[in-house]
């Protein structure tokens, strides 16, 4: 991974990865975010949680400038999205793989497109690009399927392609929109392993989830969004007892729909009763 060292810019002390103040988003005259303050510092691993329709997905997309704010402001490494230039620092993992109008694309082609922010126009694909793509495919266990059309993959495998695409760009900061939604247990575990590696490398991660599953021990901060406002920002939801021991290598023993999570969160921040149930 000598590549990583040369490809990652030096970090300025005290800089913020994301900084939103009073962020408001209105879509079709409906307020989705109603004044959100959120600052994410380099190295943090933030889980943005909330029920469907709470605005959590809108929040992370607004952080990236993908959805324009109707009020307040948001900064990416200290700059408004429109004036941000170092997009290679950001690896975005959208909720679903878009396959466009049906023209096939191979797994390798899609993963290689994650290099785009590092490949200036007319710059030919070089050995570093190819190595990054090969590493990313390896990390998500899709090397053997590199030549297959992404359209032929299962949902979980497509999710891995999206993660590999972000990995291929070797960014500082990952923004993942529900990377665990609707994926099989094996992919969840693989995602947890991949994230653990990124956390060890000191990468910043902001991920949207409504259940953390095996990602839980990696999270350093939990942000709960409800009705377009942040109702909890602080300690991540932690299971109690044996599992909460510091340094405990966590293999999640609970069922995915752990009822305790909401309670713990609510108690931690006095955010009132949270209902995580009744979601798709």
């Amino acid at each position: 991974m000598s590549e990583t060292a040369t490809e990652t810019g030096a970090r300025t002390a005290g800089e913020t990865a994301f900084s939103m103040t009073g962020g408001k988003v209105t879509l079709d005259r409906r307020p989705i975010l109603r004044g959100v303050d959120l600052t994410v510092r380099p190295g943090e691993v933030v889980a943005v949680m909330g029920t469907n329709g709470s605005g959590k997905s809108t929040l992370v997309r607004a952080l990236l400038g993908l959805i324009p704010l109707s009020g307040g402001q948001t900064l990416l490494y200290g700059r408004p999205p429109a004036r941000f230039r170092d997009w290679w620092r950001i690896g975005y993992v959208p909720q679903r793989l878009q396959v466009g109008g049906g023209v096939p694309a191979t797994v390798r082609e899609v993963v290689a497109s994650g290099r785009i922010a590092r490949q200036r126009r007319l710059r030919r694909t070089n050995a570093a690009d190819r190595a990054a793509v090969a590493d990313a495919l390896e990390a998500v266990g899709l090397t053997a399927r590199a030549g297959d059309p992404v359209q032929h993959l299962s949902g979980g495998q497509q999710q891995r392609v999206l993660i590999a695409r972000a990995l291929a760009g070797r960014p500082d900061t990952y923004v993942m929109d529900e990377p665990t939604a609707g994926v099989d247990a094996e992919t969840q575990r693989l995602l947890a392993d991949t994230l653990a590696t990124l956390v060890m490398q000191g990468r910043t991660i902001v991920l949207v989830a409504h259940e953390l599953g095996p990602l839980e021990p990696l999270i350093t901060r939990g942000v709960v969004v409800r009705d377009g406002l942040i109702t909890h920002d602080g300690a991540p939801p932690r299971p109690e007892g044996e599992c909460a021991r510091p340094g405990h290598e966590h293999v999640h023993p609970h069922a995915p729909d752990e009822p305790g999570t909401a309670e713990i969160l609510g108690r931690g921040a006095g955010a009132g009763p949270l209902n995580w149930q009744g979601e798709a």
Partner: protein
Amino acid sequence: MIELLRAPFFQLALVAALLVGLCAPAVGTFIVQRRLSLLGDGIGHVALTGVALGFLTNTEPVLTAVVVSVAGAVAIELVRARGRTSGDVALALLFYGGIAGGVMLMGIAPGGSNAKLNSYLFGAIASVTIQDIWVIGALAVAVIAVVVVFGRELFVLCQDEEMARASGLPVRFLSLVIAITAALTVVIAMRVVGLLLVSALMVIPVATSQQLTRGFRATMALAMTIGVVVAVGGLLASTLSPRVPPGAAIVLLALGGFVLALGVGRFVRRGRVREPGVHEPTPVREAA
């Protein structure tokens, strides 16, 4: 046949067919991926007004068609980018305006006639002049240059616009690049297959190719090959009898190829699924 190949008008027609066969599917691959298959039709309608303007003002119709269709393409892209539901209607209005305006202007133009109008609507490859070839050649170079220079970015844009934004790509600029390139392709193709069938050469070779390929690059390469084969093949077919219109022959040949590929593709794919071990997940790293 050899004699025909020596005839200057046929040589020009052959060059035109080659350039169209190469360019239209190249741009078409991006357009199909972007779910804009009918963009070419829209621009084709608008281009008719451009052609008629040429006759009215006594300038080269190919040049006025370039100007008007580029303007039309930019207008279409601006409407599309706003993403309003009323955009659909706005586009329809633009298309009707293009055809009606073209027919009207052609009617009042001093040199205009129904025969001329038809030659642009349905193509008249045999009447391609050396001037036409210069313009078509220059446009073809521009189109291929765009694909080479912006191809990688256009791939990301057409695959997932939001991803393109999150990668810092100039989405608005690239969208205009696609629209303008499509407009240039329409003008290249209008002499060969006619404005009403222009879009067929952008879409059918791509639809055919994607039945047989696994990747984006491969689809584009095969589509360009198919484009050249059907354009030249259709032209040759039209030499069999003066009653065979080349434009229609090219498009029907392309459609025939599509039906064939549909059958072959199904067969090939069934074979692939049976390959053992393809769906077995690769081993996962256990510890980080």
